């Protein structure tokens, strides 16, 4: 009569801190996690199927909708993949512009991660501060391409438009403000004993296991594996730019936190360098109006804010991709969640989801 049983509890798809429509079936022993089963697919919109139906230029619009917190990175990886299929060179100015925008996007994405992660752990204010800085970047994007979230700011072969007047100065101004704001976040969180207690030793995963799960991005680097596509297989103008890739040691939530915070600084460094080096010239390569790549296939990756973003395109020589596959880092990273939270408490699930930095639009595509 007084036996104990494990409790099954459903976390999500409507839950304040599952970052969207993730559902977790938790098996609890008291508050301790025995087993977790992530259930995804609530936001599945068939981006891959749409990518097979729309032309190459149109499909970029759909990449916006996958990872809506880092739409530019998705735009970029798709455009680059098509460029590789076509064998088109992108003019250097466009390459530098892409780097600037991609790194601004990374900062924006990390800021939203910081805010939501901190809010999951209970620090309400950091969220608003992060949003405040992100707003700067959204303004920059609005001023560049006219949209604040779903940019469609890359064209196959180059960029759609020049930077508007005063844009570079505005971006520099943002870079000037950013470090002092970062210091504030550090003051609020980094040394705070509650933050340390909640993040240290939580969701630990070692580098080997992380690789085994296919994790990439800050989640992998937090575990001490120095794999960053920007360094490993440089694309665009990254080879000419000087930046560090921060890596952690312990592979816990705190290390991933520090990694991302440092990445914001490094991204700022890249933006400033790229703005200094910004060459003149064309911004569109020679791309036919109707894009018809030759038969073949390409798997192209770049380093998105959440990890390795991949696009696999199979071309049959027509205007549409024959197969369009998006490799989303969130989908892969989320797989490791059951491993990372086993034996922890319910509150840690929230912290680990936050540290994985998932965007369900990208998980479900």
């Amino acid at each position: 009569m007084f036996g104990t049983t494990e409790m099954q509890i459903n976390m999500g798809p409507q839950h304040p801190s599952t970052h969207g429509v993730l559902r977790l079936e938790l098996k609890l022993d008291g508050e301790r996690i025995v087993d977790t089963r992530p259930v995804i697919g609530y936001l599945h919109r068939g981006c891959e199927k749409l990518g097979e139906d729309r032309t190459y230029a149109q499909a970029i619009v759909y990449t916006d909708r996958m990872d809506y917190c880092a739409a530019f990175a998705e735009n970029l990886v798709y455009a680059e993949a098509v460029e590789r299929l076509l064998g088109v060179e992108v003019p250097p100015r466009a390459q530098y512009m892409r780097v600037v925008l991609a790194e601004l996007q990374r900062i924006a994405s990390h800021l939203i991660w910081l805010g939501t992660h901190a809010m999951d752990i209970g620090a309400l204010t950091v969220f608003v501060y992060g949003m405040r800085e992100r707003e700067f970047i959204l303004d920059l994007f609005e001023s560049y391409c006219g949209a604040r979230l779903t940019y469609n700011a890359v064209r196959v072969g180059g960029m759609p438009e020049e930077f508007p007047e005063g844009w570079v100065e505005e971006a520099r101004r943002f870079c000037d403000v950013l470090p002092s704001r970062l210091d504030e976040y550090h003051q609020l969180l980094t040394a705070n004993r509650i933050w340390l207690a909640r993040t240290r030793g939580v969701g630990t995963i070692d580098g080997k296991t992380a690789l085994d799960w296919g994790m990439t991005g800050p989640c992998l680097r937090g575990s001490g594996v120095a794999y960053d596509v920007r360094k490993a297989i440089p694309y665009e103008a990254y080879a000419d730019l000087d930046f560090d890739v921060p890596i952690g040691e312990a592979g816990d939530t705190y290390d991933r936190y520090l990694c991302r915070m440092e990445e914001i600084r490094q991204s700022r460094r890249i933006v400033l360098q790229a703005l200094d080096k910004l060459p003149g010239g064309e911004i569109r390569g020679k791309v036919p109006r109707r894009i018809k790549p030759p038969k073949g296939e390409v798997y192209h990756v770049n380093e998105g804010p959440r990890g390795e973003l991949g696009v696999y395109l199979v071309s049959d020589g027509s205007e549409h991709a024959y197969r369009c596959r998006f490799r989303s880092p969130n989908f892969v990273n989320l797989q490791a969640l059951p491993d990372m939270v086993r034996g922890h408490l319910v509150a840690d699930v929230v912290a680990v989801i936050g540290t994985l930095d998932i965007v369900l639009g990208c998980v479900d595509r």
Partner: protein
Amino acid sequence: MSETLLRFVVVPVAQIAVVIAALLLIVVYLVLLERKINAFMQVRLGPRRVGWHGLLQTVADVIKLFTKEDITPRHVDRLVFLLAPVVIILPALAAFAVIPFSGGSFRVGSVGVRAWISDVNVGLLYLLAITSLGVFGVVMAGWSSNSKYPMLGGLRSAAQMVSYEVPLGLSVVSILMLAGTASLVGIVQAQESAGRWFLFWTPYPQILGLFLYFVSGVAETNRLPFDLPEAENELVAGFHTEYSGMKFAFFFLAEYINMVLVGCLVAVLFFGGWLPVTFGIPGLREPLSNFFPFWGGAGAMLTGFFWFGLKVFLVLFLYLWMRATYPRYRYDQLMRLGWKVFIPLGLGHVMVTALAILVRRG
């Protein structure tokens, strides 16, 4: 009207009515204050639409909550479910029976009216007893909801509130020893006659005691960084997930009333209750303790309200400030903090205080 009736029925009932009405008003504006302070700390503006600068926002919210459809889910344990909000709000209100809000007195007919409902000689014990009843409401709510998140919330809060009773009590013990009485009025009077608040008591200032009391108080009232029973990021809304409308409003009110209670107690126990802030200058004491000398005792009472209110406000501000700043502890860490840090600290604090009293007596 006979004097007995006046003394034992009319005046107490009037006092109770005034206290409850004032409490509700304070709570309503405390909620607004919380939203405003949080908003300002988050470089926002907070509610601005209802009334001037949102002054009527919470009034509107309360009206909404009280007129909303009152849903009782089908799967709940009905009796306990309905009882839980009552059980949680009654002790919260009853605790105010012994709080001395101010000094001074005035006469209504032949009856002297003081600024407290009653002065019980075991006031502190009464408070400790009655506030620990609140946990029953939480547990009942969590259990009777017959739902998983509320149950986790109820269990958490049972553990949390029971553990933090102990350091709370320990930090009060030293005050008891200093004052030599458990009457709250007596405690304030002891500080008055000592000429300084217990916070600055020589040779051993009660700073550690204040810290222990305040942090335990925050934990008792389930506020951030210790708001685990209702941690909305983990347990959706904790023990009151299934509650809505008026019943939810009761939980809400009880939480804020408890906050005010902790504020009042910190003011009484450590900051000398209604005593004026004199910055240690004895000359200031006389003019600051009565702004309205022409009204006599009533003037002293009004002045006392001011000082008392100021102290309570500062404590509540700290509450809200912490909420805007800190992340939330985890359940096991909270327990560890309570049992492994606060209870030993509290015991040590009592010992040191006892030693200090011996030293002082010589």
